[in-house]
């Protein structure tokens, strides 16, 4: 066990865990966050995605020691108070998901994609998403939401 501090959604938390513990379990079990979610533990699906210094990261594989000193943002941390992030607004407006278990990956990957590339082509969008799984098959509405978010963010930029 070792003591460290972890910055999650702007708040600093003191933790005392095995430094090899994947960030996922520290966020869920030590810090009581409901997102990210366990999907495969193998980095193959994206259900456990968080942003680490604004890069979509599989928290099921990242030892917590490597997240220390970085800015970690989870799905809850995207919105400001009651104001959803424009990406979240777009996903709500498009009524994207079925069960929604996968959505940490899709929403946070979209946020990071649009930060880098505000108007991605269809091919760029698909490439950014290729490592994510949505088992229910909500892809068509996901793509619509990305376009909607891109339009909204560019209009307000």
């Amino acid at each position, binding site marked *: 066990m070792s003591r460290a501090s972890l910055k999650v959604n702007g708040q600093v938390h003191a933790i005392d865990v095995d430094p090899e513990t994947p960030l996922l379990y520290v966020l869920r079990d030590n810090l009581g966050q*409901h997102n990210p979610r366990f999907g495969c533990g193998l980095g193959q699906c994206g259900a456990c995605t968080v942003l680490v210094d604004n890069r979509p990261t599989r928290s099921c594989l990242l030892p917590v020691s490597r997240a220390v000193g970085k800015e970690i943002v989870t799905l809850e941390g995207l919105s400001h108070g009651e104001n959803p992030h424009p990406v979240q607004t777009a996903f709500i407006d498009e009524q994207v998901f079925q069960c929604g278990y996968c959505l940490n990956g899709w929403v946070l990957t979209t946020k990071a994609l649009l930060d880098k590339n505000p108007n991605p082509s269809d091919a760029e969008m698909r490439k950014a998403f290729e490592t994510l799984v949505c088992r229910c098959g909500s892809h068509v509405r996901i793509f619509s939401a990305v376009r909607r978010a891109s339009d909204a963010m560019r209009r307000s930029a």
Partner: protein
Amino acid sequence: MAPKTPLSRREFVKDAGGLLIGFSLMDATMLPRLLAAPADDAALVPSPGRLDGWLRIEKDETIRVFTGKAEIGMGVQTALSQIVAEELDAPFEHISFVMADTAITPDQGGVGGSTSVAQGGKPLRNAAATARVVLLQLASQRLGVPLEQLQVKNGVVSVMGDPAKSISYGALAGSPDLHEALKTTGDGFGLNVEGAGKPKAPSTYTVVGQPIPRVDMRPKVLGQFSYAGDVRVPGMLHGRVVRPVGVGSTLQGVDESSVKEIPGMVKVVVKGNFVGVVAQTEWSAIRAAQALKVSWTAPKAAFPDQQDLYRHLRTATPKVSKDGIVRGDAAAAMSSAAKKVQASYDWPFQSHATMGPGCGIADVQPDGVTTIWSGGQKPHSLQKAIAELLHVPLERIRIVWVEDAGSYGRPGFDDIAGDAVLLSQAVGKPVRVQWMRADMTAWGAKGNPVAFDLAGGLDADGKVSAFQFTSRALSGTEITPQPVTAGNLLACQLTGILNAAAADEFAQYGEASAEYQIPNVHAVGHVVATFDPVASPLRTTHFRDPNGPATAFAVESFMDEMAASAGADPIEFRLKHLSDPRAKAVLAAAAEKAGWDSRPSPKKSVGAGELLTGRGVGLGVRNGTYVATIAEVEVNRGTGAARVKRFVCAHDCGLIVNPDGLRGVIAANLMHSMSRAMKEEVKFDRSQVTSMDWVTYPVVRASDVPEQVDIVLINHPELPAGGAGEPSSRPTAGAIANAVFDATGARVRQAPLTPPRIKAALASKA
């Protein structure tokens, strides 16, 4: 914190007294934290024969609805809320649901068969209509105005012509008991109630039929939603299971010293061949499950070589056989047919491979009083299995359903509950078991494989005069669709409790597929026994539209083969063999939307380039829901890779409750069924499933998604609402196979349509 005094059912019922007693105790967010009721209070569970068994009005205007149905990700809570709001003339936002808690909701058979709105909505509609009558009577007394002078709008009863004189539903809460009795009929999916209130005429609907946003979408996207995996119970420990190395392998020994150094390790639990670990933290439990040294006997070589699966299905003596549709004299008509067509089709084992592998929490107390938080679709059935497992009366078991990842049938979420019960019982504390990916993909029950042999005869006019259909489904469902016995659960099978409740289900023409107008038909279904019935990773169960996608793949492909033989356009050929106007209407609507060019398949002019394009159609009819899907595909003739470029789906499920929710369900169904048609096949060796994760069990990814998806909804407000959760899964595989044939002239008769199979079909054609 859990309450020191658990909510007893006596307390619950006393509080619930009548329809209109305020009921703030039942804050839904508290539900998972309440403990099970003492056994002696069990008889007092609210009855479905009472109005307050279905809904209650609270002082803050909340209308709390109790249903045995659960939300498995398709928006059913929103649709049911619309039905209740409609009948009560209450604001949609006032409706709140308590779903599938065996202690406090009616047993409606859980979720299955796309019945939640079609059948499950009926008692809610009738209860809400009756509640409206009761509330009006109360308001009449309170306001001193005759019933006929009252009106209701937005949950407020007012006097016609004098709207200032009014009283809200919430203000009527707390009135004396009314004990409104309801007449109950049927049970399970078919449970219905009727009371004094008669439902509205659909032509007057203002809430049903509207595209109201789903109640769960915003909290889910904002990260404020809790799934089963988020339930935390005070004192809870974490468990993981360690499965045998293959089917039939038995435990030789466990070296507990291999995990004793792991911090927070609590216990290694062994019961027969069931092995699990319990630890203080989740990470410790995972590490312990990985590190635990377990020796097993060599597994049995119980499975055939994968390549022999369909040969096995075709040559094994069936366990049971049953005639399906038999009409005229198919054999005689076949022998006199002008043209004969014969073909065989194969459908593989498939995994539900749920997005989250599933989570269950069990709190088994020393007297057997047990609470389980689970995302399974059949809580009232699971209650029976767990009671048998623990040898306690049913009333001591409470299953609290909490939404988990989309389940598409019975992926194993009940099995997880069994795991959690054994671990909790062993340590005397609540235990949370999160399945790992391989627990789900490799060890979760599977959708069953089917082999089909079809023959058809065409007369001189190119009409089908004879049809012979034979299906051989592996085992149907050797773990029954409802986990009503302990032996149904994987954990129990590992401890030595045998499964005694197998069900045989057939892949029958006309039930699991559309039926065509053919004068001479002989359809027979066989069920072939499974390879090993005990704790097998290839045990089979319901997977979204059981046997439907498989059977429709065979029948719809074969209709195309016969159309090609007759030189007919595939849609015109189908229309010639259909009389049901709704089936014809979906085909016509899809054709119109797609801009279907009427001509026989395959396409005459195959281009010179590497990429070939084509279009195909499939029809699905399921319990009164009609779906026609057209796929436009592009096939790379060098690699055999096919991609769907566009889907057009015309869908008629009777009355549409929520068109936007329905479109979302259909669009997702198309991707899910395309994934099954083109990618999904469980791989196995002689004793173990080798598809364990998303690499070894690939599913649809972003690059596979069609550029365009068009959905045409056909609304029939004059008809009852039908099911929509599964039917649009049904025609997809046939439509894609027919499109590949149209593009290339090569027929792929084995699902999934992988590049090697398409390439092989191209080669054998050339």
